[in-house]
């Protein structure tokens, strides 16, 4: 293998509902020099490969997936496409790309894509999941979140949310939607496509695996969004917004623990919860102070899938408490809190925001 090829090639998933601006975003990112060595897999949905024709960078890096919807029919094809790319890179038939971006169809639940990267026997030894980027359009996004569970799953799985079409949407409506996005997924970095300078590094890099070495990345990944979650989450989930409008009992909340946690008991608890309630736990993301460890461990899961825990070299900030964010659908915060506290023999508390 060439020296230039990373041991595990990061994979970015760009997802978002139909017409929410995935391809526009991809087009915008692909001109960024940071992405010069990125291979792009796009999914050709329907008979007309519109996405393909809109995409400027179609070359040997691009493999078109020829059939239907990523969530149910293409998983095998996706695996095959990635394996094929890997094989061609090894043979030197394509330039040695260092990152892979996958654009999914608007109707796909991102979970099968994540599991394909995580569990496929060949792929898991050469690729690793990086950020999930979800586009939500400011004009239709609220309606999509209300009506389509796929849209909610795409948002819950996101590490970066790009709110698109803010330039043509009613500003008040866009602000309400942004609030709602924050309430459903307080851990993702929210960007506005029209106003914010989007660069490839901000969107694609700085994922959980980069945390091991960089405390700055860890801060971005975790700290700011989490505090907001702690501060305002309970209102948005229980108070201000109407639970029916809020979309199928979705709630995000943060639990914090002052004491060190036992890693083994945490593993027993989380596996048991995911076995029984994995469908309802859209997201778990946290930083844990583990007994016997000086530095924290980051955990990160989407539905049934838990990524390998990441050991951080240092804490992202002065706060040494364990913090866990859950995005759940139809589960009760108090029940989860009580269960975790009982299993671990510790007491959770509502944390005050840190200055």
């Amino acid at each position: 293998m060439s020296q230039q090829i990373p041991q595990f090639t990061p994979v970015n998933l760009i997802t978002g509902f139909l017409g929410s601006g995935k391809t526009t975003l991809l087009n915008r990112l692909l001109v960024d020099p940071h992405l010069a060595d990125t291979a792009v897999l796009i999914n050709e949905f329907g008979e007309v490969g519109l996405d393909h024709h809109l995409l400027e960078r179609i070359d040997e890096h691009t493999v078109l997936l020829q059939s239907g919807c990523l969530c149910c029919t293409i998983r095998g094809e996706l695996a095959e496409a990635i394996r094929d790319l890997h094989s061609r890179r090894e043979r030197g038939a394509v330039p040695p790309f260092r990152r892979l971006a996958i654009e999914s169809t608007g109707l796909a639940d991102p979970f099968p894509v994540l599991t394909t990267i995580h569990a496929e026997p060949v792929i898991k030894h050469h690729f690793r999941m990086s950020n999930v980027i979800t586009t939500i359009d400011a004009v239709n996004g609220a309606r999509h979140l209300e009506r389509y569970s796929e849209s909610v799953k795409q948002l819950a799985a996101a590490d970066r949310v790009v709110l698109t079409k803010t330039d043509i949407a009613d500003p008040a409506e866009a602000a309400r939607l942004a609030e709602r996005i924050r309430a459903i997924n307080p851990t993702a970095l929210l960007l506005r496509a029209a106003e914010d300078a989007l660069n490839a590094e901000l969107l694609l890099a700085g994922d959980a695996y980069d945390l091991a070495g960089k405390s700055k990345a860890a801060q971005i990944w975790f700290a700011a969004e989490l505090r907001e979650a702690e501060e305002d989450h309970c209102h948005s989930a229980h108070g201000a917004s109407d639970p029916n409008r809020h979309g199928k009992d979705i709630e995000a909340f943060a639990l914090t623990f002052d004491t060190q946690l036992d890693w083994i008991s945490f593993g027993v608890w989380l596996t048991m919860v995911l076995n029984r309630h994995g469908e309802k736990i859209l997201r778990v993301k946290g930083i844990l102070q583990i007994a016997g460890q000086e530095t924290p461990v980051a955990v990160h899961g989407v539905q049934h899938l838990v990524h390998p825990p990441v050991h951080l070299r240092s804490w992202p900030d002065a706060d040494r408490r364990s913090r866990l964010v859950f995005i759940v659908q139809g589960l009760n915060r108090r029940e989860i809190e009580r269960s975790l506290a009982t299993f671990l023999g510790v007491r959770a508390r509502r944390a005050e925001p840190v200055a």
Partner: protein
Amino acid sequence: MCALCGVLGGSDHWTEAASRPGLGSPATSAAARRGERMRRVQAANRILSFYRLHLADWQGTTYILSTATGKSELVDNLSHLWSVAEQLTGRLCDPLDPALLNWLESGA
């Protein structure tokens, strides 16, 4: 055999993964990983005894889950454990179940 932990095969389940720098379980040495495995069995048994089940390590490679009457199944990792536990007992193993939590809180 995994040279790192002295365990055949080597699991990549998240609770015991140790295959990449910076990733994996907090235990890095072979002894620590074996110790961790024993503690994992103990911690699981604390919960499993509520369902009258018992977990044992088998040669550091797999686990054996048994009922009180001796019916046994092999399990690979903790995620696998709970679905097998539900099959063996015919009950749902729900960590949010107040009966389980009351029992744990009573110091069982």
